[in-house]
């Protein structure tokens, strides 16, 4: 291992994720607005490198595993939109028999929401699009800590 340890490698994989101040607060507010929508069970914001900025998921939910998959999915959606010249990736939804996962893309990272089967897809997608636009704004205008 490294000679000198910092949280980047001293935090063992799977360890609890500590809350951080500053711009992360804006991310938390964005996520809190989204998870208040009808039918949305919870969600998280993860950076492209897989760092969970904030998460609000039901107890016993596999946060780390979901974050890794969400970051991988977000990156694939981003790359595909670019390679296939469909414009920058904004939002996506994937529905299954028992619920729907929404993903929003921004330079800061990916917003992932877990929702019920009968959620209002159009309503959540619109709200997620607005949230993604706000996150793009935070990327362009560096916040102070």
């Amino acid at each position, binding site marked *: *291992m490294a000679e000198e340890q*910092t949280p*980047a490698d001293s935090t063992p*994989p799977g360890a609890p994720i500590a809350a951080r101040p*500053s711009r992360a607060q804006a991310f938390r507010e964005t996520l809190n607005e989204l998870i208040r929508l009808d039918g949305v069970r919870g969600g998280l914001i993860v950076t492209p490198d897989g760092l969970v900025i904030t998460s609000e998921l039901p107890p016993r939910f596999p946060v780390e595993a979901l974050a890794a*998959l969400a970051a991988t999915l977000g990156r694939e959606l981003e790359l595909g*939109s670019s390679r296939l010249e*469909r414009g920058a990736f904004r939002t996506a*939804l994937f529905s299954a028999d028992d619920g729907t996962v929404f993903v929003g893309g921004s330079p800061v990272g990916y917003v992932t929401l877990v929702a019920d089967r009968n959620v209002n897809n159009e309503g959540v997608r619109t709200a997620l699009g607005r949230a993604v636009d706000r996150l793009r704004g*935070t990327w362009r205008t560096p916040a102070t800590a």
Partner: protein
Amino acid sequence: MGLATFLERTWSGITGLVRPRSAASLFRLADQYRHEGRYEDAAELITEGLRVSPNIAVGHLLDAYLHVVFREMPAAKASFRRVLALDPYHPRALFGLARIALEEGDIEGCRPFLDRAIQYFPDFPEAKALQEMVATWTAPAAGVSSSIGAISTERLRLPPGARDLVLTHADGTLVFAQGGEERQKQLALHMTQVYRIASATLARAGLGALRRGVVEGASETSFLRSDGGIILGVTLAREVEVGAGLVQVGRLWTDLNIKV
């Protein structure tokens, strides 16, 4: 406060300002900034830390993370490899390289990194999630003809403005696609990857098998439908509402009369 204490504190303050910070403290602060989303500030500290101490694995790891955030994948890969040169079993560096291999479509190259990361650090839920996801993936069978039979596009009710119609098996084997050969290949590869990763995400969330998908880009929206064996995709204008788009894709699905 006595004069001696006052002088001591003042002197301590002055020397504290000019004393060079250790690489460890620079990396610690950089990691804090990274968690706060202050990537540019973090990058400066990492550069400074690596200048002072170029052989600290965590500095290169943080450097790699920031390259990923800035989508500088070749540089990220080089930094993850520097970490491994210093610490051959660093689980986070192995995981980082696995993810890059995955996004490059190199499934065979991805697996050994995940295996090594988990071998060294068994309690690694992120790596396990990806390992389980890729475990069943196979490369598309080249040149295999479709078991679905001939696709008659004439009887398809293609929505106005529809493009990039694509039909594949879940393993990525192309059945039919619009466009030139290179475009077809890209469409099939991307749609299969999205299907597989989204399926794994839905399964991990306990929601069941993927049935429908909608991907909104800045200029177009793509719709996806699957029964687990076959994946159908089509791209429509961005203005098309989710419900209307899904109805149109459902109609195409019916027209294709898909029987796996």
